[in-house]
């Protein structure tokens, strides 16, 4: 697995709640047989009109947001289907961390396996981040995984939660399948029960 390195970046804001994986990447893009090249399909139905032209109002299409690595979004991000294509599309576009008050379970698991960091914050902090970016959309946020801190310019400096195992995997690039396979003997004895 790719390691997670610290980020300092401008932030893309999509305030909608309950953004489901069908919005992150519509099902018609799931006919691929590899993981690559899904960046163009990210938020496709919001990014492009029916005739395929770009929607200039959508944040992903705005010049100042190109190169941003952090997405700030509404509650319950990533609900719906189990498609890992969602984190593949987000990371292919360049997103490396998503900030919300909550994440759907399968999305969180999938994200963590792709070095995409789901950062869960309280509603208060969530609101202050929206306020900050409302005032100045050039504001940057820094994320340091080792110390689990998120820092923004308006005196926000918080510690975010992440389970120890996921953190270790992200920091050192642990191969999770390799980890499971190191328990072969126990798996065998379980099967023999």
């Amino acid at each position: 697995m790719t390691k997670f390195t610290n980020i300092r970046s401008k932030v893309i804001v999509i305030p909608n709640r309950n953004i489901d994986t069908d919005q992150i990447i519509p099902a018609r893009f799931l006919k691929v047989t590899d993981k690559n090249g899904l960046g163009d399909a990210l938020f496709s139905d919001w990014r492009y009109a029916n005739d395929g032209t770009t929607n200039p109002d959508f944040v992903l299409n705005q010049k100042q947001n190109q190169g941003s690595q952090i997405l700030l979004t509404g509650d319950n991000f990533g609900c719906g289907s189990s498609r890992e294509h969602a984190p593949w599309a987000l990371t292919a576009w360049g997103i490396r961390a998503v900030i919300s008050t909550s994440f759907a379970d399968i999305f969180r698991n999938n994200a963590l396996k792709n070095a995409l960091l789901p950062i869960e914050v309280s509603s208060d902090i969530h609101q202050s981040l929206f306020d900050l970016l409302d005032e100045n959309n050039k504001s940057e946020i820094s994320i340091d995984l080792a110390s689990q801190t998120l820092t923004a310019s308006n005196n926000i400096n918080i510690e975010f939660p992440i389970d120890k195992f996921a953190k270790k995997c992200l920091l050192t690039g642990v191969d999770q399948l390799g980890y499971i396979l190191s328990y072969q003997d126990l798996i065998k004895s379980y099967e023999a029960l």
Partner: protein
Amino acid sequence: MASNQQTLFEKIWKSHIVSEEPDCPAIVYIDLHLVHEVTSPQAFTGLRKRGIKVRRPDLTLATMDHSIPTTPLSIPIADDQAAQQLDHLAKNCKDFDIQLYGMDSPRRGIVHVIGPELGRTQPGMTIVCGDSHTSTHGAFGALAFGIGTSEVEHVLASQCLLQYQPKTFEVNVNGQMELGVSAKDIILSLISTIGIGGGTGHVFEYTGTAIKSLNMEERMTICNMSIEGGARAGMIAPDDTTFEYLAGREYSPKGKEWDKSLERWRKLPTDEGATYDQSINIDASSLEPMITFGTNPGMGVKITDRIPDPAKLTDLHARQNLENSLEYMQLKPGQSLINQPIDVVFVGSCTNGRISDLRLAANLLKDRHIAEDVRMLVVPGSQEIKSQAESEGLHNIFTNAGAEWREAGCSMCIAMNGDEVESGQYAVSTSNRNFEGRQGKGARTFLASPLTAAASALNGKITDVRKIL
């Protein structure tokens, strides 16, 4: 004290732990792994890269459902990418020795329909699939949940998964449903109450007299949509209804094995006095047919209720969300959904594409014709259901009524195979998701039961089925 008393979930969880260490997720053993064409190719690529085999092909089974056309097999697949994906699955199953219910198999169908149909889904099992509606199998008293493609690779390679123990959430449903109200209405009502994130981090267990009285297909409808309430899994304790369904199925245990299994299965139900982390009560007698009006399954109302008004919401984000949904749906606050004109009706999917669903819809359509300009698509959940329906003459009822009768598959539930609702059209659908674009870009979906769907097809407008029963 209550410490020895366990819930159904806890019993299955504990008995499947291979290893558990502090600060790490548990290594959980998986009894059945279901595979389909969409979420598996990259996992097989991963195995090839590492040069490893599938650890337990005997505990793995594959089918083709998501991108498969529902037109007759004789018509070649028009979509090259879909054809390629299906070929990939066929090759992967061959190379890795996995049993595949492929294109021309009479047992093929939606993965969550054929698992139970074949008797592969059994009480007490851990079951996973790269698909969020794996929760369906929980209807048999199994712990079944959806996983991502990386995890599909983990299970193929090791038959195990890394998981943290989820919390438990009892959904206790009592009382008798009115005629015209069905299992779909129970689950839509639950989700509209707790919201689509309400069950996050939890496993639902559905209990109560109303659940006990449901048949297996109805139980599957309910467990299927657990994920729409945010719970990865939903479960129902196995009982005689479960055992009767399983008896004699192709892969159900036979003879002495059956007796032994029964003995084990009977010990699974939650012990009296065991506790859940959360619970909710639903009075089934107060339920009405449900219909969604918005762009997630939690945005549903009783069919006689009106669409909520965003102006009445104090939370800014919630208001904005509702406004966005109504804008997408082109519906007005305070509007009644009854008599809302519709263009398409879809009866099918792993939620409501089983034989009992088709029978309900057919009963209403018998000797009647659907509205002039409505397109109605009836898609059986499996080829087995298709032949059963045809042996009962249901296909004739559907086609005589003006509906299209198709081959099995996911079809318009996910609109990957060319079966789509056009942009701007309204559809009443028996599937499980009304997300923006789910049934085709710009498509507007109302989720409802097969009864509501068929009644609405007849009138060309959203209809309270109780009025025509």
